[in-house]
């Protein structure tokens, strides 16, 4: 083979491998849409499940997932962004910061069921929150923290060092530099990371299994100390626990969850693209 041929073969192989990655994703999405779309209706989205969940809608599960996602955002965003600012702008490289970074990497690697057990032990039982939205949101928030921290830190580090030097040189303090120069520039990246993290949290079952999710609740949650239905858990329940469950309702539920998570990712991507285009440097 001459160099030209090697080039061609390499290109074909790499394209094929890339396609292998893409095909299952497209397949999953199309299959879910194809199987689920018939059962989607206005009633399905706005009604409570009826007749042992084999009929009716998934309204309380949708509301529950939205509430849990909001709660996760409230729990994870302030803490995560503060930690990222500390690591990127304040911490000097020493044993403590290395330990913190190692902890963050490890947090990201912990299986989600372990977060669920941790949430059960600490939030539900020890802090006596009971199976509740707040316990679930805190558990999901904890799980989302490493994503928020590492993407935010990266966004902050992407802001050129020159802006910091200039800011200090005109007599800005460190906090003023962070607040007025660094954060405005890093915000698009931070928001993107936060949305991606929340998207992942919204689709998780294991962390809310023991902390927030209910099999069936006949009314919407009245406070954050109530338990709630949630899309991923509802999907798990109707797929494994309910005999005679119509398959199209399962796929319709999956489709709603998938749409919820994917639309968050799409929003994050569009937002990032717009903000990057607007950036001056």
């Amino acid at each position: 083979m001459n160099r030209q041929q090697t080039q061609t073969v390499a290109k074909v192989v790499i394209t094929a491998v890339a396609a292998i990655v893409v095909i299952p994703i497209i397949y999953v999405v199309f299959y879910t849409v194809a199987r689920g779309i018939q059962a989607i209706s206005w009633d399905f989205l706005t009604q409570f499940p009826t007749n042992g969940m084999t009929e009716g809608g998934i309204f309380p599960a949708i509301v529950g997932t939205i509430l849990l996602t909001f709660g996760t955002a409230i729990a994870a965003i302030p803490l995560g962004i503060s930690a990222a600012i500390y690591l990127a702008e304040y911490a000097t490289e020493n044993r403590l910061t290395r330990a913190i970074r190692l902890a963050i990497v490890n947090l990201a690697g912990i299986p989600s069921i372990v977060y669920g057990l941790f949430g059960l032990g600490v939030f539900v039982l020890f802090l006596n929150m009971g199976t509740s939205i707040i316990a679930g949101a805190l558990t999901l928030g904890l799980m989302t923290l490493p994503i928020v921290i590492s993407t935010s830190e990266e966004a902050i580090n992407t802001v050129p060092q020159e802006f910091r030097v200039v800011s200090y040189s005109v007599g800005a303090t460190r906090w003023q530099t962070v607040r007025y120069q660094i954060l405005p520039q890093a915000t698009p990246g931070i928001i993107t990371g936060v949305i991606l993290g929340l998207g992942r949290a919204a689709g998780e079952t294991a962390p809310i299994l023991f902390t927030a999710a209910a099999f069936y609740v006949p009314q919407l949650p009245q406070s954050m100390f109530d338990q709630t239905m949630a899309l991923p858990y509802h999907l798990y329940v109707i797929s494994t626990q309910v005999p005679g469950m119509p398959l199209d309702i399962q796929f319709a539920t999956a489709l709603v969850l998938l749409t919820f998570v994917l639309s968050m990712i799409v929003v994050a991507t569009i937002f990032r693209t717009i903000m990057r285009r607007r950036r001056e440097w």
Partner: protein
Amino acid sequence: MTDSIINIQNISFTYGDGTEALKNVSLKIPRNEVFVLFGPSRAGKTTLMRLLNRLSDLQEGATHAGDVEFAGQNIFNKNIDVIALRRRIGMVFAVPIPLPGTIYENLTFGLKMAGIKDANTLNERVETSLRQSALWDEVKDRLDDSAFALSGGQKQRLCLARSLALEPDVILLDNPTSGLDPISTSIVEQSLTELKKQYTIIMVPHSVQQASRVADRAAFLLDGEVIEVGGQAQIFLHPKEKKTEDYVTGRFG
């Protein structure tokens, strides 16, 4: 030389990687003159400048010995207000770096951070500093445009104006004409004559030629050491040291 505004005494500076950038440097900078620090690369010019307003603090792991007195105070004194020091010793960098935002925002950022909010004061400082840096006529109608829309030469004068807006005592100019065309360069050089009436200017020049054009007084640095200090005529016409003469006449460097 009784009225020196900055008195550098036996300053040595070592970077975190062990590089000795300055070795026992002593200099007295007189008020209201253009003081030029020149020499080949790695002579320590920029390091010395960044030490004077303690931007050197940003260098992790770097150490220094010696003292710098500014207006009678040791700038390394624990009780010194570094933020206030940087407002009194402004700096313009080799590469002009506007902050993201408008021309107006660039000029008022330092003032706002210092707590000045009065719109009249801000407007007045903007106009004065732009006039001093010979940029007013070009940008007075587009103060709300992005600072990144300016040309290279305009950006550099904007950065100069940004320092001047704080009404400092000293301005550090680190090779301010490095990326500029000859016309922009000469505008900047000419503005120095006006500026030194009000400010003390310490400048790293672009070339020996520029050094001899703008300097009232000059120090020749080589490998972190001061080889010779003197008035413009001494350094550029009758240097006492062989190394200075060789460098000024272009025999090395």
